[in-house]
């Protein structure tokens, strides 16, 4: 990781569904290269036998009982929808 391969900005932007201009790509690649260079020092830490921490205070079995409660009225559910018809959200035709 100390010699992390250069960040493939096109591939990552694709995964993140972000359209970037050539200028943005160049700038982000350079800035993130600096950040990744900094982050590379994590490789120096001896983490053998160390458990990962997902939560600072781990608790288990946090659930609710299976009782249905009222949800949002359709009008509220679609209140912020950019495009709708027949109480559904319109998206460009999806070809599966």
């Amino acid at each position, binding site marked *: 990781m100390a010699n992390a391969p250069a960040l493939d900005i096109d591939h990552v932007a694709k995964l993140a*569904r*972000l359209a970037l201009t050539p200028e943005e790509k160049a700038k982000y690649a350079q800035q993130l290269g600096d950040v990744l260079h900094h982050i590379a020092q994590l490789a120096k830490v001896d983490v053998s036998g160390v458990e990962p921490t997902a939560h600072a205070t781990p608790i288990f079995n*946090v659930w609710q009982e299976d009782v249905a409660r009222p949800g949002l009225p359709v009008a509220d559910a679609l209140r*912020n929808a950019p495009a709708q018809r027949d109480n559904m959200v319109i998206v460009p035709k999806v070809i599966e």
Partner: protein
Amino acid sequence: MSSELFYQPITALAAALAEKKLTAVELTQAVIARTKATEPRIHAFNSHDEADALAQAAASDARRAAGQSLGALDGIPIALKDVIAVRNQPLTASSKMLANFVSPYDAGVTEKLRKAGAVLWGRLNCDEFAMGSSTENSAFGPTSNPWDTTRVPGGSSGGSSAALAAGSAIATLGSDTGGSIRQPAALCGVVGLKPTYGLVSRYGLIAFASSLDQIGPFARTVEDAAIVLGAIAGHDERDSTSFKTEIPDYRAALATNRGPWKLGIPKEYFAEGLDPEIAQAVEQAIAFYKAQGCEIREVSLPHTQYCLDTYYVIATAEASSNLARYDGIRYGHRAAGAKDVVDLYYQSRAEGFGAEVKRRIILGTYVLSSGYYDAYYLRAQKVRTLIRQDFLNAFKEVDALITPTSPVPAFKLGEKADPLALYLCDIYTIGVNLAGLPAISVPCGFTKSGLPIGTQIIGQPFRESSLLAIARAYEQAHSWSTKHPIL
């Protein structure tokens, strides 16, 4: 009541309201007037709804007249960072992506403030999706520091600290993922409290990094912070990370918890890069505690140098996934003329997100991507374990830790253009989030040029009572909280 109602602490205002020397409507009108007067120079708010606030105030007065006051917060105008959902009000995260979004529901803390009778006043500016340390990353323009309007208020909750410092709210709420409450509190000369992870519900808080985010109060005094914390803390079954714990009366505990305490000074927090004026102010605060009979002990948090890297891996990874929902489909900005649904994602997200958000999404996507997960995310989670262990080891010896909040005072708007330089503003605050601890920033003086300085006190998990008491002891012996910017 003094003429400057909007600079009074909650404790004084609550007493005046109870004694019927003041009405909630008068107080709210004073805050509205102050907001109107200062906003052109400060721009702390993204939106506010005067009619709605006055209606809430009138309802508060009616309750009080009927002898049904809900307590110290009943009728107190409190403004919320624009990442906390308030039903039927805009919720933008200071992003073009959500510029027209209206929340159909209340956050957990919003419900709790309503139950306490608070007057919900305005959505406060912040860095877009809470990503930043200066509030310059807002799609709606930066917020200025009331102490020097050419400078930043800190961030990401800069609107929350600036509005309070300017008198445009009596208390505010912010969110803190890597210092976003404490750093702006320090830079604006107010009290800012980041509670233990899990003490305050995240339900209805726009997620940045789920395992680090926590809502907390900004207040004029430690006692006010205790009052607001008491209102918003407590288990919420809609947040799986919310902790089931008894919520003490934090305000009452201030009177009983009197020390002396054993206080630790982490040597790694007083290293290179710390502004000498800040170092000096914090040293004086430490000297105060020593003079009060507290035992001061140097401690070591050996993994401190890895906090920033650990944080940027974990926070951006979680953010890249949390922000995937902003896609222009169900709500939010939708680009015009997309040729298919994939194009719709690309364009809507390119247009809707600002530069810093894109940068972090890319970094976070990268560290999770195939082949890099173990080297970055998994490793960062393991280092996080060591960082947390450092703190827990220190707490075997001491009750709390004292550090600077920010390495630098408020800097000039536009001064820090390099993201890495800006990330370094958070070096003293980030470890607390990684370890899930509570911490508070209290004003501890001013630079020669008149900029506020804050000191950070870090406490043990769920021991906010003790943390607040330690902060209060310092605050009571100093008069920083009575000083206000000239606006």
